[in-house]
């Protein structure tokens, strides 16, 4: 496969037997259209990952990190090596499959800042509809041109995006009925 011919090609990387092709965020839809024309007719998944605080977690163990020890996190260990820094806060991965013999899988990836929108690929693969809604709901990625970008799993009036790393995990405030 010649990944260089993809619109917005930045880099191709092989790791653990998988190919990751990084694409310029602005050209992700063109790259996806190109991929579909190349035979990647099957979109398996769209995943956003939040890298806020990546590599900076404190440790109580004997191995130091950038921020040193954190006694408030007992029973966690630090890293043996600091993980490689990421270019932006969010990565957005498109897992594609070409139904050929043998099957070819590739991960198209683009990087997003907070509140940076990305083009929707619903027009390329209709199945992207719910995948994009889910990532919008849980990660707060805005897909421009999505026909129906609403919350999917969380209630409509939910605030915040639960899978973000800065989302509080200590539970939700309890509202008592007499306070209404």
């Amino acid at each position, binding site marked *: 496969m010649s990944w260089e011919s993809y619109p917005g090609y930045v880099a191709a990387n092989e*790791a*653990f*037997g*998988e190919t*990751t092709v990084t694409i310029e965020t602005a050209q992700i839809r063109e790259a996806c259209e190109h991929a579909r024309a190349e035979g990647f*007719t*099957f*979109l*398996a*998944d769209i*995943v956003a*990952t*939040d*890298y806020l605080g*990546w*590599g900076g*977690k404190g440790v109580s*163990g004997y191995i130091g990190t950038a921020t040193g020890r954190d006694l408030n996190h007992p*029973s*966690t*260990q*630090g*890293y*043996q*090596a600091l*993980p*490689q820094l990421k270019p932006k806060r969010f990565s957005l*991965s498109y*897992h594609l*499959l070409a*139904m050929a*013999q*043998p*099957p070819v*899988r590739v*991960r198209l990836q683009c990087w997003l800042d907070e509140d940076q929108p990305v083009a929707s690929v*619903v*027009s390329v*693969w*209709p*199945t992207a*509809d*719910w995948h994009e809604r*889910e990532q919008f709901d*849980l990660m707060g990625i805005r897909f421009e*041109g*999505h*026909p*129906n970008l609403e*919350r*999917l*799993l*969380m*209630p409509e009036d939910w605030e915040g995006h*639960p*899978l973000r790393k800065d989302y509080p*995990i200590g539970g939700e405030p309890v509202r008592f009925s007499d306070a209404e």
Partner: protein
Amino acid sequence: MTVAPEKPARSMRDWPVVFPPPYAGSRIPSRVPTILDVPAELLATDDILQVNFGPNHPSTHGVLRLIVDLDGEQVVGLNAVIGYLHTGFEKTMEHKTWWKCITYPERIDYVGYQNAELVFVLAVEKLLELEVPEKATWMRTLLCELNRIHSHLVFLGTSALELGAISMFWYCFREREMILDLYEMVAGARMHTRYFQAGGLAEDIPRGFYPECRKLVERMPKAVDEYEALVNRNKIWLERTQGIGLLSADDAIALGQSGPVLRASGVDWDLRRDQGYLAYDEVEFDVPVYAEGDVYARYRVHMEEMRESTRIVAQCLDRLEQMDGEPWIADDRKVVLPPREELHTSMESLIHHFKIVTEGYRVPEGEVYSVVESPRGELGCYVVSDGGPKPWRVKFRAPSFVALEATATCLRESLIADMIAIVGSLDTVMGEVDR
């Protein structure tokens, strides 16, 4: 079923059309691929009744809500609403050590639990670059196939029940019980076994398992014959399943369908054969494909797959019976718990045990997407590790989630009475849809 308020609030109708159908002849709704809109001329007649089906209804296999617009008995509009079972598995897993995480995937897809467990373990092993002993690979194959039969039995029993065939349900659950007993024998739990460890199996295969499993292998083909005798020439069953819920091959691929739904639409695609993981390269089996793309084809695919799975189980047993005494888990003390008896004699083992149980093992930095053919289709697991003892991000590609995207396409021009059969035939597990 409850009748919705008189004036349906569907403000989304005014939104601009941005999604063109990908090709001529597609049945995928054109505005939003997952929402069937009421045609404007029908809406003007004021005869459209909006009905709320679910979220609590016995035939939704969990909690699925369908907002259906009816013109008489005809379904003219549909919107599937999910999220009622969302429990935040993916978030929770970010806060558990790798080996504690293994219990979560099987609760996501609580019917195809063994395959769900497998896909996560495979992802971890991929990151660890861990070699799995042959015996563990064969046992994993066997258990995953048992699980596939189990899942298909639940599908068959419940979807037949929804169409009024109650005896089918009892027949299916009779064999399902045999399979659950086998699981109990192996892992001590009937479901959610947590029998797969990173590196192999949690324990050796118990004595007496092979003969018991052989009994199932002998029983299963006869049982499938019985199911077929019950419904194959049953006029009511045929009338209610043939020619409804149509999904063409192109639409199925465009909508990301996988597993039995895809194969019932005439696409010859099975990851077990085409991608080859575990021991599937070394066993013989056929992949049933039906071109009709209707509910009956999906039912046929499930039936045939049970027969094929039984064949695979038999071949796994043949191999496993020659592997007595071989290791069932990799010998990597930094990841795998040491043998229990060593804890009393070896300081090293005690330390390893303590470290793995309290802090967990570290998984090298990286991202992987592992994939298996679960009973419902392509089940994927995307995992990011930062090199620490907990996953940074876990995401499951749930086949049921994707299958529900096809409801609007399948239910086009169908009758309200067929809705149950069609949604049932997509074989969704809501736990997996909502995660």
